[in-house]
């Protein structure tokens, strides 16, 4: 799955200006690439910067968040690469939804409660495409079918649908203009595990058929391991490890990744005594000079606390740890 380069982010830094004090470094020096048709999972807990990263990429952040450095290039199928961070408002408006769509965490609450679903869809489509109302409605019906909502439900109001259906409706809304990239920020956190599995299956199928790339952001690493091609782990505003999904699960390098992976009790196999990760997430208002995970790491040394570990490359993975984990774990099939 080595498609063409679709998105190239380099050295992105986003900070929050705090009144009367040093700025809060929400995202520090984040670089990653996304290829066509690739599913990239970004895992991180609260305060890791994963949501700020996405809003900054799409220039949706609100003050006091300010992007202070970095580059983000988008490569459309036809035409020149676009600099997302410096594009003018008109280009940006065209890009959003048509090329890059977003499904936010409480997306199901983002549906207008006093408008029928069909009219919301038609509005969205016609804002980006020159279609007649009838054509737009047909397109909307097709999208609904694709995500498994019966066409008859289109005339319902959002509150008449269940949570899972609303979430699928917002995913359909994101796909209606056939974007190149769909960014999903915790799309299944608010639904039950059975509905979650259904939605993920539908997303996987749609992705196989339409070939769009996905950036899937969540705190649930175990979920990412099942859907992503590649996973990036964020901690303290930085990407601390990035690797193909299977490799990350079987043989992680960064100590935080190991701790995170081992925070999920297994459903099968022996039940080990798990400890999670002691300590608390870093305070981004007082960033440490060295590795932000060092205070919680059992293997940290003075070197770790002195300077931020650089990203090392090893085959298909990168990680920022000077005392990485090495042992391969046998995974029971």
């Amino acid at each position: 799955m080595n498609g063409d380069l679709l998105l190239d982010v380099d050295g992105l830094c986003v900070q929050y200006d705090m009144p009367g004090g040093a700025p809060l470094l929400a995202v520090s020096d984040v670089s990653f690439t996304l290829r066509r048709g690739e599913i990239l999972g970004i895992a991180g807990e609260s305060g890791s910067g994963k949501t700020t990263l996405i809003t900054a990429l799409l220039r949706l952040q609100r003050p006091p968040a300010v992007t202070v450095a970095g580059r983000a290039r988008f490569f459309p199928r036809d035409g020149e690469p676009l600099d997302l961070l410096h594009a003018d408002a008109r280009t940006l408006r065209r890009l959003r939804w048509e090329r890059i769509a977003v499904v936010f965490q409480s997306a199901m609450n983002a549906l207008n409660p006093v408008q029928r679903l069909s009219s919301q869809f038609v509005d969205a489509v016609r804002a980006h495409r020159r279609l007649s109302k009838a054509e737009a409605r047909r397109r909307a019906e097709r999208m609904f079918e694709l995500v498994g909502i019966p066409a008859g439900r289109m005339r319902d109001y959002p509150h008449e649908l269940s949570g899972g259906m609303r979430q699928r409706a917002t995913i359909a809304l994101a796909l209606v203009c056939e974007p190149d990239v769909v960014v999903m920020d915790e799309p299944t956190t608010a639904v039950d595990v059975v509905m979650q599995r259904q939605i993920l299956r539908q997303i996987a199928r749609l992705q196989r058929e339409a070939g769009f790339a996905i950036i899937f952001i969540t705190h649930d690493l175990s979920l990412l391991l099942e859907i992503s091609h590649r996973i990036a782990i964020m901690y303290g505003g930085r990407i601390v490890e990035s690797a193909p999904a299977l490799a990350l699960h079987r043989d992680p390098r960064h100590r935080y990744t190991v701790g995170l992976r081992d925070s999920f009790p297994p459903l099968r196999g022996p039940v080990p005594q798990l400890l999670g990760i002691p300590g608390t997430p870093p305070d981004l208002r007082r960033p440490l000079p060295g590795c932000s995970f060092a205070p919680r790491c059992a293997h940290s040394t003075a070197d770790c606390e002195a300077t931020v570990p650089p990203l090392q490359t090893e085959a298909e993975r990168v990680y920022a740890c000077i005392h990485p984990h090495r042992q391969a774990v046998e995974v029971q099939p």
Partner: protein
Amino acid sequence: MTSVADGGPVLEAAGLTVHYPVHRGPIGGRVVHALDDVTLTLHPGRIVAVVGESGSGKSTLARVLAMAQQPTAGSVRLSGQEVRLRSRRARREYASRVQLVLQDPFSSLNPLHRVRYLLARPLALHAGVRAEAELDRRIRGLLERVALTPAERFIDAYPHELSGGQRQRVAIARALAVRPDVILGDELVSMLDVSMRLEILNLLSGLRDEERLAMLYITHDIAAARYFTDEIAVMYAGEIVEYGPSEPVTQAPAHPYTKLLIGSSPDPGREPALDGDDDDLGEPPDLVAPPAGCRFHPRCPFVMAHCRVSAPPRVDVDAGRWARCWLLVDEVEPTPRQTT
């Protein structure tokens, strides 16, 4: 704290039913079937997990057991005695034996009170401790039991100065302050960061082992339930559909809904199961008009004609293990549902 006879159950739910009236138009008499005929026992030194999706009734069960709401039918028994709370004193006595800890660490602690006050109140109300020195000593002891040390760092802190995991530990310490026999936990870790969840689960596990507390642990995460609880009760649409020791229930589930739950839970160890058919597994049940017969039948891959008509009985699968399913009753043959 009164002592509990070894082996006997300390808290029991017997045939608990909770129906909420629905006010809708001229047609009266419609109710939300939140709980229907639920029977459950809690023993000292054992944790029972209640697993289910939202709307399954698990939170309602916890609240009724805590006597935060009155059941429509059925009873709650504490040490064999039926519980009837008529006065504030009776309520206080009940609270000194059964404590409820809630899900949201942000709203379960009053943001304007320091940890010291939050822990002093139950001590004053239930243990009658009012002297400053004694209060201080007991509060420090509580903080130590939930591993919030050094106590100085936490004792004068406000909730917003603590992380979610720390707040939840304060909530547990507050419950422990009255020296209860039973702790009811409603989704204690779902609002916490993943890396902080295990410390809470391990804490609960330790409380069971060292203090012989009886616990009810409500969750939607069946893998976490398997990790540290002794028994699992699987709830669906207000009923318990399967019950048994955690390991057999998760490794060899008897009820189709349990199988569905386990099959849907993320499991990196298994081969990617996203290639399967995304056939519609149906919507969650309507609690106002639940399906006739077996409430799970619209979503069941093994549904039979019989299931649509009559509710399945409790069938013993093994020692201490049962499920409500017609498939387990010998003379009926299972046939997979035809895919449309």
